[in-house]
């Protein structure tokens, strides 16, 4: 009966040793922390790269090693790491793994072994990516969009090995994301506890659930383009590579379509924005509700907005390609869908504000980050409306206006959510509070600092300053005022970058020495705060799974002494203990 024994072990996956508990762990919480630590490590590398770039832009020539090739390599790696290896991995692999089973009342993900494979494939993808810093020619400098033919043509930095490692790393990452995604979606569909209907799930779960569906359907587009470009580079196929002369020599390529790559890339690339944004939307809704002691305004509308944004995100991709020479009717179509997607997005912004309206707002660090997110997302979203229109986009294309837009909307805004969420859920993960004072300093420097960085960039863009230029001092049409502004932006960026040390210090110090938090320091109603132990132990719920009786936003309920009612409190318990609660 060996198989029965094996089957039980597999289902319980009870860790027995240090290795099975912390390294080859199948526990979703450990996997989440592994994902997060790898992602933060990668993010720090990307942050340093951005500081190097800013030094070159603000004070050209100040870094001796920074030539044009190094600049483009730093730019490419910064973009790719931030979008894929930090934000996607952190939101889905990190928060998704930690939150989904706890919030829906499951013991773990439904396929724990596959989940473990997911994090190790992710680790492998990061190793492959970082290996490109050490190969001849260095990492690819093709820009994060990796457009052919430039990406694999002689003269582009990293054309030898860097681009190969980048593409292989992306393929491995996609396999990792798919393995994780299968778990997140199946867990939400199949492993919710008793009483946890879909419309009793916190918006965090809704956001991550929908983002995962997007990832599962959109990442194949990156996979397809990655495989085909890899074959173009390694065995000389001509999927994307046109007939061309390079360095005075006729290449062996013939007839490939670079525009086809762009379509595939952005068919992935635009949903990718929402793969990052939807979990952020969900998490911010929960943080706002808890810290303003109010139910989320228009919960059902919020759910449907998440679903609508997810669906619409598949039909807006070509607004990234207005200047690629496509049919003007296509431009009209994609501009229209882009404007339509603003509707559910605006609904969400209104509902966040109305959630705060007349709430019992507690000015905690997570709440501050949440409010900062609303401002930042609004600013970034509005410039998105500008750029979504062909006639405005064409003059602004390839200027710093675009850089400012996408950094506000999918750089700073989601990162603010990451910070807010870590401050919010840290007590559940570690059992300790993060230091409030350091948190406040971190918040104000980051929030004001990022505005000092990105607000002036809009002006630079309208002025016509092109992005991607290695040395802007060589061009007469760029005025001195733009250079002065760039120096200012660089100083702000360095300050914001350095301020992140406060956050790292706070996280590490608080994990070991922070004030003990107790199980539910924010008096939150959702299920993850109701675990019998904090931090939750293996299996999450002890002997019995929780039974859910209500939605997760019962705050300030009239007639109840405490201003929140946990999801697992029944109506009878509520009646019997009205005073006590």
């Amino acid at each position, binding site marked *: 009966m060996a198989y029965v024994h094996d089957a039980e072990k597999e289902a319980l996956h009870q860790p027995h040793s240090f290795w099975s508990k912390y390294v080859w762990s199948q526990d979703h919480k450990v996997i989440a922390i592994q994902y997060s630590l790898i992602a933060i490590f990668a993010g720090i590398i990307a942050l340093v790269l951005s500081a190097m770039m800013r030094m070159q832009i603000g004070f050209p020539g100040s870094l001796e090693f920074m030539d044009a090739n190094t600049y483009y390599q730093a730019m490419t790696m910064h973009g790719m790491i931030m979008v894929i290896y930090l934000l996607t991995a952190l939101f889905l692999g990190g928060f998704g793994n930690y939150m989904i089973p706890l919030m829906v009342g499951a013991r773990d993900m439904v396929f724990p072994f596959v989940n473990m494979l997911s994090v190790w494939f992710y680790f492998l993808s990061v190793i492959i990516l970082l290996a490109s810093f050490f190969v001849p020619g260095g990492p690819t400098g093709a820009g994060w969009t990796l457009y052919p033919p430039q990406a694999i043509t002689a003269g582009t930095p990293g054309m030898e090995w860097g681009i190969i490692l980048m593409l292989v790393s992306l393929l491995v990452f996609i396999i990792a994301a798919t393995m994780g*995604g*299968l778990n997140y979606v199946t867990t939400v569909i199949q492993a919710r506890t008793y009483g946890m*209907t879909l419309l009793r799930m916190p918006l965090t779960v809704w956001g991550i659930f929908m983002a995962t569906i997007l990832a599962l*359907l959109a990442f194949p587009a990156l996979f*397809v383009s990655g495989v085909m470009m890899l074959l173009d580079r390694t065995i000389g*196929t*001509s999927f994307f590579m046109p007939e061309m002369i390079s360095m005075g020599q006729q290449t062996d390529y013939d*007839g490939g*379509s670079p525009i086809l790559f762009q379509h595939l890339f952005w068919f992935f690339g635009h949903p990718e924005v929402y793969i990052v944004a939807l979990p952020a939307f969900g998490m911010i809704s929960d943080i706002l509700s808890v810290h303003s002691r109010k139910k989320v305004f228009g919960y059902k509308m919020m759910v449907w907005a998440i679903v609508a944004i997810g669906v619409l995100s598949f039909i807006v991709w070509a607004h990234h390609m207005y200047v690629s020479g496509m049919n003007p009717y296509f431009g009209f179509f994609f501009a229209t869908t882009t404007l339509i997607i603003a509707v559910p997005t605006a609904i969400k912004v209104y509902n966040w504000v109305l959630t705060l309206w007349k709430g019992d707002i507690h000015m905690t660090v997570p709440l501050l980050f949440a409010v900062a997110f609303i401002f930042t997302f609004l600013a970034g979203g509005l410039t998105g409306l500008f750029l979504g229109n062909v006639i405005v986009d064409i003059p602004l294309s390839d200027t710093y206006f675009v850089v400012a837009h996408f950094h506000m909307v999918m750089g700073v805004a989601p990162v603010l959510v990451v910070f807010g969420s870590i401050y919010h859920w840290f007590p559940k993960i570690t059992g300790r509070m993060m230091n409030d004072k350091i948190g406040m300093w971190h918040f104000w420097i980051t929030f004001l600092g990022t505005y000092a960085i990105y607000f002036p960039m809009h002006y630079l863009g309208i002025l016509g300053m092109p992005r991607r230029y290695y040395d802007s001092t060589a061009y007469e049409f760029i005025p001195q005022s733009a250079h002065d502004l760039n120096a200012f932006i660089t100083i702000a960026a360095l300050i914001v970058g350095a301020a992140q040390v406060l956050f790292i210090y706070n996280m590490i110090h608080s994990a070991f020495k922070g004030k003990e938090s107790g199980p539910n320091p924010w008096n939150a109603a959702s299920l993850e705060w109701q675990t019998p132990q904090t931090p939750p132990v293996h299996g999450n719920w002890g002997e019995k799974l929780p039974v859910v009786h209500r939605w997760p936003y019962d705050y300030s309920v009239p007639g109840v002494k405490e201003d929140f009612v946990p999801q697992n409190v029944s109506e009878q318990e509520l009646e019997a203990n009205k005073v006590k609660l």
Partner: protein
Amino acid sequence: MTAAQLMKTSGFESVGGGANEWQETPEVIALRAKTGLRILMAVITSLFFLFIVSFLIRSQIADWEHLSAPWKPLANPWPLWINTGALVLASIFLQWSRISSRKQEARRTVETLVLAGFFSLVFIGGQLAVWQQLMSLGYFVSTNPANSFFYLLTGLHGLHLAGGLMAWCKTVVKAWRGMPIKQLSSSIELCAMYWHYLLGLWFVLLGLLTSSPETYAALVRLCGL
């Protein structure tokens, strides 16, 4: 608003899924595995859909040399039809195994399961033979984009089948170790679902690869590409 009013949440009923004990029931585990497989098949569909769209767009560029044109290797694709026959047999035997396992016919279940694996290997071997034949005729992977797509699509389909064969191996090992048919049946069920899916996918790919240039042009026009 009272707590009772707040409690009134509409929507689908919870599927539960979790027993109050640590160990899930085999039915629950099987249901979850099926859901997971269905989602995986959706991902694979998205992957091949995008390859097919790329194929169609690339086929409209002048340098494309149709493999199905007269005097070209796929003008008479009988080797592919033989391979298709092997995959159809694999699918039939898996279905047979699935039905037998439901009827608790242990011997028939295992026999048909093994035969399904055998015909799957025949299919993969046959596809490799077609590759070799093409290469012996000078149709290498990078000679023309039509060739590149042929190798790419058949190769990826074969890799997906090879992945399925790993699950098949695991099921055969379970049977060999004496797992009762009742418990084995959920694994066979999953294999059967996946094989049928890959057979359907292969029919689509076969249709695409052996169609005429006019069909490609019509499809591209139909899609507005």
